[in-house]
């Protein structure tokens, strides 16, 4: 129960962060090159991602031994989680510029304000930019859904949490339009990074033959331990001083 809830939260958080990034590109493409092409590109990419989950999900479950899957998935989650955690800590302490969706949006708009679109309303550039943006950000969501879902045997829970995040962020994105900077992305990245590192440690260890004391409950211990380490790292790097915090895209 604890593990299932943590999986749903981790997938939801990670998917929300990636969807915000994808949505920024789709909105920029939609406003500059026309909504039709941008939405068609996004829908085509979404279709590709659904096919990837449908093909790779059952294949991996049926043909790869669970311990091998756990070692591979655990390692992947550890790498991904540590990357997110590192980035979020460096951003929180001013060692790395903050991610600004507004700046990215304006940069995309400037880049896309080029030749006019065709009379049919379809625009190849708008379609391609939107397709690539959704496919690349979505592929990260797919990786997280597959790794967390398959290792725990809760692929449906992971997929549903990801879908809920995509729908929620898309709905909020439509309502607030260009104010995507209001999303506390760094705090979300920090929380999701902590969860991914905890799951990665748990499954990587389990696959390598470790018996965790308290079984699933040790996930909470790992989460608490890594949260303390993160807090200490932010305090230490914050005190070390790094000059004014920049904000760029």
């Amino acid at each position, binding site marked *: 129960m604890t593990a299932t809830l943590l999986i749903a939260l981790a997938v939801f958080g990670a998917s929300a962060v990636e969807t915000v990034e994808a949505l920024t590109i789709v909105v920029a493409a939609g406003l500059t090159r026309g909504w039709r092409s941008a939405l068609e590109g996004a829908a085509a990419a979404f279709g590709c991602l659904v096919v990837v989950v449908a093909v790779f999900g059952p294949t991996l479950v049926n043909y790869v031994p669970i311990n091998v899957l756990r070692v591979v998935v655990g390692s992947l989650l550890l790498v991904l989680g540590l990357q997110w955690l590192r980035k979020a800590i460096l951003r929180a302490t001013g060692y790395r510029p903050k991610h600004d969706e507004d700046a990215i949006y304006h940069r995309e708009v400037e880049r896309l304000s080029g030749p006019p679109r065709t009379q049919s309303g379809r625009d190849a550039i708008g379609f391609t930019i939107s397709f690539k943006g959704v496919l690349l950000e979505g592929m990260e969501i797919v990786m997280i859904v597959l790794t967390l879902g398959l290792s725990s045997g809760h692929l449906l829970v992971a997929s549903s949490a990801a879908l809920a995040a995509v729908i929620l962020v898309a709905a909020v994105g439509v309502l607030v339009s260009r104010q995507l900077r209001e999303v506390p992305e760094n705090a979300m990245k920090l929380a999701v990074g902590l969860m991914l*590192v905890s799951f990665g*440690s748990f499954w*990587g260890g389990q696959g390598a033959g470790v018996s965790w004391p308290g079984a699933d409950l040790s996930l909470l211990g790992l989460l608490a331990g890594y949260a303390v380490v993160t807090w200490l790292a932010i305090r230490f790097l914050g005190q070390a001083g790094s000059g004014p915090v920049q904000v760029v895209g």
Partner: protein
Amino acid sequence: MTRWPRAFALFCYEFAVGDTPELAIGVGLVIVATWALAGKHSPLGFWFIPAAVTLLLAVSLWRGAVTKART
């Protein structure tokens, strides 16, 4: 025809390694060392991963902070 596999391989490399090769290599070493420890029924296995991951994060943060200080 070779564009798609190449692009996918590039995506996988960027996804797993990117600008933090120390994390990818370190995690690989941690998992192998854990397997060696747990394989011998050592009671040390379960605390090794959190300790090694903490060390790995510290090294990577130090590298990130030093890189920033140099630029």
